[in-house]
C-alpha cells in the first residue's frame, strides 16, 4: 500500500533519516519505534507527502510521490499528527465538516454524522473543541483522519498523554482499522502497545536498525526459549535434555528454562522425551522477554556499532 525506498532526508548538515526502506501492507500495523530524534516524525511526514525526501522515493499504491502527484496522493493517506490540531473555537461537528469539505468527500454532513456515531462523539458534537478532554480530542482527530476513508493511515503517537482508558479506546479503534484492511503505520514510544497490536516492528535510529515481527525479533536477540514446570525433582531431567542436543538449560526452582533456537528439535518433542523419562509436567510456556528488552538491546547495539554500512536485521 505504501512503500519507502531508500529515503534519506537531511536538514542542512544534519541527517534526520538515512537510507530508509520499508513497506506497509494492507491489513497490517507496522510500529515505528525509535528514540527521540530518531527520525520517526520526519519519516511520517515524508510518507504523507508533507516534506520531500532529499533522496529516495515514496510510493503510494505503486505510484511515486513527487511535486506533481503529492496533492492527489495525499488523498489516499490519513495522517494523525502528534497534536490533535483541532480549531478550538469551532465545535466538534464544525471541525469535522471543514475537513470533510477540504477532502472533497460526497455529502459531507452525512459523512460527519456517521463519523460522530462511529467514534461515539455525537453527544459532544456541538461543543467547542476547546472544551474536550485530551482523550476526546484525540478521538475527534482520529475521526477527522478517516473522513475521506483513506486506506493508508499514518499515526504519530496516537496514545501519547492519554489516560489508560482513553489509550485503550484508541488502540481498539486502531485494531479495528487494521481489521478493515487498512495499512497502518504507527509511531509510538509505548512498547506494551506495540506488543499488543503491531503486526511488525521497525526500529529506527536515523537509519533502519531492524524490521520484523515482535516474535522474530525476540527470537533473533534472545533465542527461542521455553519454560517447563515440573512436579518433583528437576535435576535428573537435565541429562534427558542434553541427550536431545539442548545445551542451554537452566534450572529455576521446579522450572527448567531451555533455548531451542540452535537445535533441530521443537517443544512437543522435548515434552514427549521428558514424559517418556518419567517427568510430571505441570506447565509449558514460551519464554518472552519484554519488547522493551528487545528494543533497548537493538538501540544500544546500534549505538555501539554506529556504522551506517551495517545492514538492518530483517
Amino acid at each position, binding site marked *: 500500500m505504501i512503500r519507502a525506498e531508500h529515503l534519506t532526508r537531511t536538514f542542512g548538515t544534519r541527517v534526520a533519516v538515512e537510507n530508509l526502506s520499508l513497506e506497509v501492507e494492507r491489513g497490517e500495523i507496522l510500529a515505528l519505534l525509535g528514540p527521540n530524534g530518531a527520525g520517526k516524525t520526519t519519516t511520517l511526514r515524508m510518507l504523507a*507527502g508533507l*516534506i520531500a525526501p532529499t533522496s529516495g522515493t515514496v510510493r503510494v499504491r505503486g505510484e511515486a510521490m513527487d511535486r506533481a502527484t503529492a496533492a492527489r496522493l495525499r488523498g489516499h493517506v490519513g495522517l494523525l499528527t502528534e497534536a490533535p490540531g483541532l480549531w478550538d*473555537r469551532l465545535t466538534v461537528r*464544525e471541525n469535522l465538516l471543514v475537513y470533510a*469539505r477540504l477532502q472533497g468527500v460526497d455529502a459531507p454532513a452525512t459523512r460527519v454524522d456517521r463519523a460522530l456515531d462511529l467514534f461515539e462523539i455525537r453527544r459532544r458534537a456541538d461543543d467547542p473543541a476547546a472544551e474536550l478532554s485530551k482523550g476526546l480530542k484525540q478521538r475527534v482527530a482520529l475521526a477527522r483522519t478517516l473522513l475521506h476513508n483513506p486506506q493508508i493511515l499514518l499515526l504519530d503517537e496516537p496514545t501519547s498523554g492519554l489516560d489508560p482508558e482513553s489509550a485503550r479506546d484508541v488502540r481498539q479503534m486502531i485494531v479495528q482499522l487494521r481489521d478493515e484492511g487498512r495499512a497502518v503505520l504507527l509511531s509510538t514510544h509505548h512498547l506494551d502497545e506495540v506488543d499488543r497490536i503491531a503486526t511488525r516492528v521497525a526500529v529506527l535510529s536515523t537509519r533502519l536498525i531492524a524490521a520484523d515481527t515482535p516474535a522474530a525479533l525476540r527470537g533473533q536477540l534472545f533465542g527461542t526459549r521455553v519454560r517447563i514446570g515440573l512436579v518433583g525433582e528437576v535435576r535428573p531431567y537435565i541429562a534427558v535434555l542434553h541427550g536431545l542436543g539442548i545445551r542451554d538449560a537452566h534450572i529455576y526452582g521446579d522450572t527448567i528454562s531451555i533455548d531451542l533456537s540452535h537445535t533441530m528439535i521443537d517443544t512437543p518433542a522435548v515434552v514427549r522425551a521428558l514424559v517418556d523419562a518419567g517427568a510430571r509436567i505441570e506447565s509449558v510456556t514460551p519464554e518472552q522477554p519484554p519488547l522493551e528488552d528487545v528494543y533497548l538491546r537493538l538501540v544500544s547495539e546500534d549505538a555501539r556499532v554506529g556504522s551506517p554500512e551495517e545492514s538492518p536485521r530483517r
Partner: protein
Amino acid sequence: MKRIAALIAKDLADISRHPGLFWPAGLTAAISLALPFFIAVAIPSLTGEPLSDSSDFQIAVEMYRNQFGARDLDPEGAIQAWILQQFLPLLVLAPVAGSMSIAAASVVGEKQARTLEPLLATSITTFELLTAKVLGALLPAIALTFICFCAYAALAAGLTRSGVFWILLAPRSLLVTFILGPLAALAALQLAVCVSSRANDARSAQQIGALVILPLGGALVAQLTGSFTLDVPVTLSISGLLFLVNVALMWIGIAVFDRESILTRWK
C-alpha cells in the same frame, strides 16, 4: 473552489467567535468616520464660524467648484464635500488596518495552534490555502468598509448642506470606496499572509504587512495638500497598478510558501 470556500467559512466562523479581533478595526473605523464630520460640521457649529469665512479654504472651494456635480453647492457645502472626499480613502483603509491582524495570524497562527500540519496533510494546494487565507481576512474588511460607507453617506445626508450627500455617490467616490479600497486591502492582506507564512510570530507579520498602508497614507496627505488629486483617471490608474501588484503578490506568495520550512523549522 470547494476547498477555498470551506476554509474561508472556517476562518469566518473562527473570527466571529473572537470579537476582540474586531475592536481595532471598529475603533479605527469609528475615528475615521467621526473625524471629517468633526472638522466639517462640529467645529464650525461649536465656534459659530463657517469654514467658508476662512481664507484657508478658499482654494479648496475654487478647486472643488470646478468639478462637475459640485458647481451647485454653496461655498460651505463645497468645503464640506471637499473634506468628506479627502477623508474617504482613510475611511476605506481603516477596516484594512483591522483585518491586518487577522491576515497576519492566518498562517503563523495556525502553526502556533498546531492546526497547520493536519491542514497541509489534506489535498489542499498552496494556491487554495493562500487564497482562502487572504479572502478570509478581506471579506470582513470589505463588509466593514461597506457599513462604514453607508454610515458616512447617512451622516452626510443628515448633517451636511444639501447636495453634499450626492457628491459621495459620484463615480470618483464610489471608485475609491469599492475598487481602489478593496484592491489596496487585497494587496496589504496578501503581503501580510505572505509574511505570515515566513514569520515566526503574528506580530512581526502584522508590522511588515502594515507597510503597505504607508504609501496610501502618503497619497492621502498629498491629496490634502493639493499636490495630488484622486480623480477618476488617477483612481483607475492606481487601481490597474494595484491589480498587477496583487497578481504579483499571489505569485510571490505561492513561491515563498515553503511547507517544509513551516513544518520543520518553526518552533
